């Protein structure tokens, strides 16, 4: 049994590595399709670098070497853990990303956590209840899903920060500065998570074991929380896993609105200035996050529903 388990996990890790390398290759290829001379984009329209300096830059970063060589060179560095140096900011990519990733992860985690809580409360409170409650909950969820996160952010900012001075306007120095950005991101997440969770709860409540539980003397709420929630957790988990991928988009916008540090601004700058090492670093980071979250989701799914264990192994 153990051997099968290990082979299952090994296969999954191999697939993960393939995905990350593939993603990096995709990004490398795409970036090199961007028109315009690499050096002049790098220096920006206002730079006054002399032709000699431009030639120096071209040779330093190996732009003059053929594409394939550049890629091979890059891959060998990555394998040895060196992500190279940012063209634009003359700083090692690992330091750049390393410094910036923590506030973004902090924001993403807070947003996801908050979203799960909001979704859980709204779904549990309304699943199986009177239709009026349910339509109210699904209405707010629908509006939350339909509003861009940065717009919610701006509204929250105007209300709580400018007018009411309740929360700090920007920066990421303390917990209080995390509340508004996390809430802005969490609202649209909570919308979609809430919809999926409620659907899961209601399907579970229609199952016979829910009637048995009620027949044992449990209240509707007890049945929902103790029995139905676990059943609805698996689809919720899978969705949450996928959402972390799309969260980066939302994070960039919200970080801009709230003036928070994070990889959002880094991504924007890197892609617009074709700062290859930084983009590749970010791609590998996202690949890692994707692989880790999908692995985590699979593991949690098996914990929640042991019947999946067999499937998980035989993937």
């Amino acid at each position: 049994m153990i051997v099968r388990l290990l082979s299952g996990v090994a296969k999954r890790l191999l697939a993960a590595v393939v995905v990350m390398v593939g993603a990096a290759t995709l990004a490398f290829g795409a970036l090199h399709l961007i028109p315009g001379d690499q050096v002049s984009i790098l220096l920006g329209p206002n730079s006054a670098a002399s032709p000699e300096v431009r030639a120096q830059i071209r040779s330093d970063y190996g732009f003059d070497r053929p594409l394939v060589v550049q890629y091979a060179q890059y891959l060998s560095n990555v394998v040895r853990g060196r992500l190279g140096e940012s063209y634009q900011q003359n700083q090692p990519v690992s330091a750049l990303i390393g410094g910036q990733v923590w506030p973004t992860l902090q924001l993403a985690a807070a947003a996801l956590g908050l979203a799960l809580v909001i979704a859980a409360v709204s779904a549990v409170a309304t699943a199986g209840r009177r239709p009026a409650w349910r339509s109210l909950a699904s209405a707010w969820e629908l509006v939350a899903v339909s509003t861009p996160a940065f717009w919610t952010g701006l509204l929250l900012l105007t209300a709580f920060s400018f007018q009411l001075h309740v929360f700090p306007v920007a920066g990421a120095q303390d917990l209080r500065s995390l509340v508004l950005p996390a809430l802005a991101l969490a609202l649209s997440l909570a919308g979609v998570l809430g919809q999926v969770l409620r659907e899961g709860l209601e399907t579970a409540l229609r199952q016979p074991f829910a009637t048995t539980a009620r027949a044992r003397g449990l209240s509707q709420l007890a049945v929902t929380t103790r029995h139905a929630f676990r059943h609805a957790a698996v689809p919720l988990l899978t969705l949450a896993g996928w959402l972390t991928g799309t969260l980066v988009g939302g994070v960039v916008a919200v970080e801009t609105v709230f003036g928070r540090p994070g990889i959002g601004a880094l991504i924007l700058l890197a892609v617009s200035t074709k700062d290859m090492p930084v983009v590749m670093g970010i791609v590998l980071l996202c690949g890692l996050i994707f692989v880790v979250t999908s692995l985590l989701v699979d593991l949690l799914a098996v914990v929640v529903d042991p019947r999946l264990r067999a499937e998980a192994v035989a993937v």
Partner: protein
Amino acid sequence: MRTVDASPRVLAVRAAGARRRLADVPVPVLVAAVVLAVAVVVVLAPGLVAGSPTRTDPVQALRGPSWKHLFGTDQLGRDTFSRVAYGARPSLLLGCGATAVSVAGGVLLGLAAGFSGRVGDQVLMRVTDMVLALPPLLVALVVIAVLGSGTVNVLVAIGVAFVPPYARMVRAEVMLVRRSGYVEAAVGLGLRRRVLVVRHVLPNALGPLLVLATVGFGTSLIYASSLSFLGLGTRPPAPEWGAMLSESRDFLSSAWWIGLFPGLAVTTAVVAINVVGRHLQATFTGRTRR
């Protein structure tokens, strides 16, 4: 196509069926349908509803909502109501276009994976994982950087970024339908593989796609406005909702109306599409009770 002699009795039965179906359409869906109808009218002929979106009138700059200017005026004195009306076309076009690109890519990839053997399936799925591993924003940014940031390019960028979820869904549906009872029954009738695929597998596998597309429309519209907010969106001459939101952010406290109404427009459009989409889903799954 089957030919049914339109005998009065059969017609009566069908009409009754239709009336019955219309009656039980819930109110919000009707409202959403009306909103969408209005949107289509505004997209096709904004002139009907609003004046010129570009006429500047500095004397009237930054006026609040009034009878003359329903949604107030922006800092150049342009009528926000006309700009929202004229902005409908690029925004909704963006939403539809991007969704179309995602659906097309998703269907191609999904069908290919669904019908090819184990190896082909694994390879294609790994490719979708690769694109899925990149956050949609990064994919969109790279595509915009490669193609430039015109309306069509942004549309393609967002479309490409959202291909993986559609691909995965189509593949799952195709697998599900191929193993279903009615396909086995059809094989039992001795139908050729091509007939089987066209008549049974494709319609049933692609059915649920319609529903996901309506949700996808909302996401694309929101993404487009986010890209405009980050300064990467489209810059068409006519105002686009996302760009209007982006321009309005400096006037949040002083002239709230410049930003509020385009924001409301985005939310209303997406809500309407989702409501109609979910109703379609209910009637669709209701019918198949898979």
